[in-house]
Every structure is written in C-alpha cells, then in structure tokens.
C-alpha cells in the first residue's frame, strides 16, 4: 500500500514526523510526502529515513519567475488556470499513490479537487483549529467541511472531543471518524530528573489559544502568597509583546522568563529541572507537550479544554483546572507545588501515555484505518 501524505510546509511539524517515523518503522506501508507551501518546487530532501518519496507541489504564488516561464512553456497550449492544475496533477500522478492523506482539514478543503481528477480515495486528519477556530471566523467553512467529510474515505481525529465537535458541526455519522492518538517518542522516558524546588515549566507557542495571560495572573497570586517559584515559558509567537508588558506591569520580571524557541535537547534540560509542568490553554486538540512532560515524569497541572480531560483524571495522574479560570490555575499550581508525594501521580501518568500514545499502537491503527 502506498500512501501520499500532503503537508503544508517543509520539513513538517514534529508530530507529523513522529507519526511518519512510527508508520515507516512498524509497518510495511510505503509513505511519501508532498508539500503544498514550500519555497521550492520538485523533489525535496526527506526529513527522515524510510520515506518512499518527498517532493513539493508547484506553488505558483511563491515560485521564481524563471520557473513560472518554464511551466508556461511546457503547457503552452493550455489556459493558465488549467495549466497550473495539470502541473500539480502530473506531480502527484508520478508518485502513483493508492490513498492520499491530508494532514489538516483545511488542507483537504483547499486541495481535495486533485482526488476528483485522479480518482484516488482520500482521508484527512482533524487536529484542533480546523474544528475549533476556522468554523467561527470564516463564512461558509462549516459547509465546506461537511462536503469534504462526505467525500472522504475516512477521517482521523486526534482525540474524542474533536470527533464529537466535528460530528456535531457537520452532522456526519461518528462511525466515519476514527480517533487515533498522536505518537509520543520514547526518548522522553530517559530524561534524568533532578527537580528543583519551585521550578514551574510551560511549553507552547505564544498564541492566544495557549492562555498564557491567565497563567501570568495565577503566578502573580502565587507571588502575593509569598511562595518561592520561577516560571519558564518555552516558545515564541505573536503574543510576546503582551506577555512582556504584563510581566513588567505585574512586577514578575524576576520570576517569569520567556525563553523563546528551544531545540529538543535544550527542552530535555528544562524537563530535567522542572518540579511542575503547567498548561493553561483555552483551546486545544491534544497538546503533545503535555504527554511528553508526563512521559518524562513531571507532575502536571492543566486546564480541561479539548482532549485533555480524556487523558487527565483529576488528582489521579495530574491536576485538572477549569480553562480560562485564573483562580483555579493558581490553586492547581499551589497545591501541586506543596504536595508531599508525586510518585503515584507520575506513575499513573507514565502508564497512560505508554498505553495510548505508543508508536506501535499508532502505526497499527493507522494501517487498519487506511485499509478501508
């Protein structure tokens, strides 16, 4: 079986790379990647071993003009719009896939026309903002989502809550949607833990969905209580000016550090030191950073949005707060910081992540999913 996955930009997000790694290592499915928004056109360097093929679809918005002229000459007798389509279809036909998989619903909506022309069945993934954000800010998005859902051979959701939201938005049968959890790499297991007292850690893009202002306000309450702590936030994004302003305004300069984007190896050193891991999101599918922290053996405090409440049971394998509720996040951080024994909570956390997020399981379910 040959699957062509269509991604937005090269080299693909970490969770997509982990997914591909699991498929390639544990099954005999042949996997190829195609990028829709890459700078270059043609074959690209595969970001991991074992990929059958890796190439960029012609992107006429970003293409250099001499390449455009080349395409124009090649499809001289065709209307320009048709020529663009033909060029993309040729690139896909060359790969000869059995099934096309779109990594995001929004990508599927934009690109599903290629499957009409080639008569190849397609599947797609729903991962968060496709369901939680776009339907409310783009007119007619829900109808498009419904149309694409009807046409697709199968739909993959990363958590139950997204599946429910998708079905209630589009009124499609839940049977068509399969929940397959993401892959959490084993390497997070062997973080050598050396927790420091009062060391709080949060990981996420500095974006409104992550609810960092609530986290800062909760931290401000900790400060007023006289609790000694330091909070490190790893990630970069458009909300940085807001967070920097709030940190100054609340007098938290000594306590909160916006560390910017960090590599995997650097994140491991933060994971080693962290006493508590915090997620303050307002909107989520399922945050991989949370599963990674649980795998590494850090006690977690998290809000109950999206798929998080399916995994975290309050006080069993983590502390669950209400999302958008500063008081509740503050109480969670405080009680976890002063808790006596973390071990049961950590072990329960590790157990559930190992059970639900393993590479083997992910690869097996995905191959079944594609055997439709």
């Amino acid at each position, binding site marked *: 079986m040959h699957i062509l996955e269509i991604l937005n930009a090269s080299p693909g997000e970490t969770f997509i790379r982990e997914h591909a790694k699991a498929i390639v290592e544990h099954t005999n499915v042949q996997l190829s990647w195609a990028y829709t928004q890459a700078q270059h056109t043609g074959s690209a360097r595969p970001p991991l071993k074992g990929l059958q093929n890796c190439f960029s679809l012609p992107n006429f918005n970003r293409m250099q003009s001499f390449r455009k002229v080349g395409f124009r000459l090649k499809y001289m007798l065709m209307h320009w719009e048709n020529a663009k389509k033909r060029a993309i279809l040729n690139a896909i036909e060359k790969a000869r896939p059995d099934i096309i998989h779109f990594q995001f619903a929004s990508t599927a909506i934009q690109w599903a026309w290629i499957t009409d022309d080639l008569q190849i069945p397609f599947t797609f993934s729903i991962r968060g903002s496709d369901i939680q954000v776009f339907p409310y800010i783009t007119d007619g998005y829900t109808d498009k989502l419904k149309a694409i859902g009807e046409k697709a051979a199968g739909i993959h959701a990363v958590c139950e809550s997204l599946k429910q939201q998708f079905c209630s938005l589009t009124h499609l049968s839940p049977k068509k949607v399969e929940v397959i959890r993401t892959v959490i790499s084993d390497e997070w297991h062997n973080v050598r833990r050396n927790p420091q007292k009062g060391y709080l850690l949060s990981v996420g893009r500095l974006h409104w*969905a992550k609810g960092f202002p609530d986290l800062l306000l909760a931290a401000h309450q900790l400060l007023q209580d006289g609790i000694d702590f330091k909070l490190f936030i790893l990630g970069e994004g458009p909300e940085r000016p807001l967070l920097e302003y709030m940190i100054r305004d609340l007098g938290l300069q000594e306590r909160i550090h916006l560390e910017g984007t960090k590599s995997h190896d650097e994140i491991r050193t933060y994971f080693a030191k962290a006493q508590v891991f915090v997620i303050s999101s307002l909107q989520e599918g399922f945050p991989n950073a949370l599963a990674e922290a649980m795998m590494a053996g850090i006690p977690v405090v998290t809000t109950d949005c999206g798929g998080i409440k399916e995994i975290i049971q309050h006080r069993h394998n983590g502390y669950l707060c209400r999302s958008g509720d500063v008081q509740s996040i503050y109480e969670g951080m405080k009680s976890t910081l002063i808790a006596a024994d973390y071990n049961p909570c950590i072990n329960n956390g590790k157990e559930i992540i190992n059970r639900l997020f393993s590479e083997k399981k992910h690869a097996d379910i995905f191959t079944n999913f594609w055997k439709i």
Partner: protein
Amino acid sequence: MNSPKILVVISHWPSKAHPYLTWLYYRLKEVYPRLQFFIFSSSDKEFGEQLIGKEAVKSCLKNALYRRHFTLNPFPHLISCYKILTNIKQSYKIFLYCRAKGSSILQCYGQLYYFSSLLGKKFDLIYINALQTAKHFRSRNIFGNTPIIASSRGQDFDFEPEGFDNVLTQIDHLHVLGEYLKHKAVSRSFPPDQITIIPPAALPVTIRAGNLVKSDKIITITSASRLAWTKGYIYSLRAVSMVIHQLPDFHINYHIIGDGPEKEFLQVEAVRLGIQSNVIFHGWQSQDEVNKLVFSADIYLLLSIEEGFNNSVLQAQNLGIPCVVSNTGGLPENVEDGVTGLVIPRYDADAAAKALQKLIQEPALRKQMGEAASLRVNQHFSLEKQVRQYADMFENVIRNHEDHIRLQ
C-alpha cells in the same frame, strides 16, 4: 515674534485612525491665524473631508510638506538632488550623522531623499505628534537649535521603558495627556517643569435628537476601539458572559465596534463562553456611525491593560453614557470613579462583572452618571480649552527659547 512658523510632524494626516487630530489642527488654524502651521507627514488626503469638509482640509494642507516615498521615477530624485545641492552644508551634516550611525552611502541618500522637502527651511518651533515618530525624525540634525516639543500619548514608556531615553534627551519640551504619563516621563528623569499636561478633547456631537424609549430589561453594552491586546477585550468578554449568566431576566447585548488583530480570538472566545448570540462585531465604522452606536448604548465598557488616556471613553462620556473602565494608565483621570462611571482593577473580570451588574440593575444610577459625565466633559475636556492650551504651550516654548538666546 509676529507670526511664528511651526512645523508639525505627524506620521499620517489627516488620518482614519486619529480623527481627533484633524479637528485640533483645523481649530488651531481658525482660532490662532497668526501661528503658521506646516504639516510634515506622508500623504493620506482622502480622510478628514467628512469631518471638517473639503475646503477646510484643503486650507489645512496648503502648507503641507510630504515625506517622499521611494520611487523609480527620476523626477522626484532630480528635485531632491537639487535640494541637497542647494543646501549642501545642512545635507553634509545629516550625511555625516548617518555615516556615524553605520548607514551605507545609499542609505544616507535615502534619508536625505526622505527629508528633502524640509531642507533649507527655517522654523521657530518643531512639534512632533508622538514620541514614536520622534524616534525616527532626526530633527536635531536637520534644524540644529530650533526648540522641539513632542507628545507622549501612551504605548511609549509602557512598551519600552528604556527605549525612549535617547529621544527624551533630544527634545526641549514634552506634552503629555495626563498625570499618569507625566509621572512616567518624570521617572525616566525628564525635568517636570518642562512638561505640559493637555488632555484630549471630546469632539462636537451632532446627534442629540430625542431620548430612545426602550425597556429597562434590554441592556446594550458597547466598546469602540481597535481590537488589539492593549484593550483587554478578553476581560470584557468574560465579564459580559458572567453578567449574562448572573442576570437571566435581562436581555444583554454586547456591541464591539472596531477591527484588529485580536478579532479572530475574540470571535472564538465568545463561542467558548457560549455568548456568541449576544456579542455583535461591527468591524470598523466611521466616526458618525460610532457616535450613533455608542449613543444608543446603556453602558460603555473598556477594560484596557495599557492605555495613555483614551479618546473613545471621553467621547462616550460626552454622549452621556456611563463608563466601566479599568484602572490602567490615564483611564482613572478620564473617568471619575463613582461619579461619571466605575473604575475597577485591571485584569479583573469578576470586579467588572460586579460593576456591570450594579449599573444594569439601577437605571437611575446610569442616568445620573451619564448626565454627570457629559457635564464634566463639557467643563474639563472642551475643544476650545484644548486649542487654547496648545497655543499657549507653543508660544511659551518659543518665548523661553528666545529669552534663552538673548541671555547667551
């Protein structure tokens, strides 16, 4: 000093974003004809006509000098080269300054080209409309000792505490909108006796026709500003959602007028809070339309987390609407707590919800506060007063400078 020449440096004028400036300069020109204003800005001529009329805009822009935008058309370059050559001494000074800053020769020419309409001109005073503009405007290099006034309008010291120290050493006099900004400037060691406080003024209002008769059970809350993070709309939405759940007897609508980068977030957040049917996003509206919408409101809400003074709150008070605002920046000076509205701690949706609840349940209090608000604005924030204060400030600074020269 018969008719001093004043150069006004503005980034865009007349602009869509700041209709207040259009009024101010129009009135200044009318009331003080002996002050000669020259406006230096990038051209944005279309707007302003609906505010003060086509003829008035034309007369205001008679002396306008425009920043040159880079173009491949040789004609503007020929003019700018002519200007540079005829004012070679001044140009050379700017050139040396730019070189010292590490610019390439081409970049130096770019700077000269940009300012070429100002070369060889002499002014008695330079007024820069905002500190952010002052940062990029090399007035000392171009005009030597001419006194400089700059305005601090918020989003300057708050965003970059140290970023404006350099600018403050370059200017002679600072205009601020309120005590809060003055305090900020003084804490950056700017001499307090060189600071003038002139608050913004409310625009004249034409809609006053008849009271709207409607049920006390239908409540309209309105906000009108850019949808940026500084305006703290997330707390407004949370407060409104709490009130909607706490007071099921009332039908509460929240109108948000304006556009900006946070729009997507706010739409999704309204869905998450389950109040999407109560929140109406109007997008950007003209000043008349905003006035109409605000006038039909019962309560004006703005829970900013960063603010200089805020004109829209002033305008809402002028229209006789009680305001609920946060204690950010100049807002506590803008709204008198308990008299013309309620001031609550910032970042605090619970406190805002309580304040809203109080105003919603007491129509008499709303009416009383609204009347007090419009009275206070007319007394303290009138356009005539503002125009007089500006003219006084300009004349004082020029006089002081002349005295200073005479003493030397």
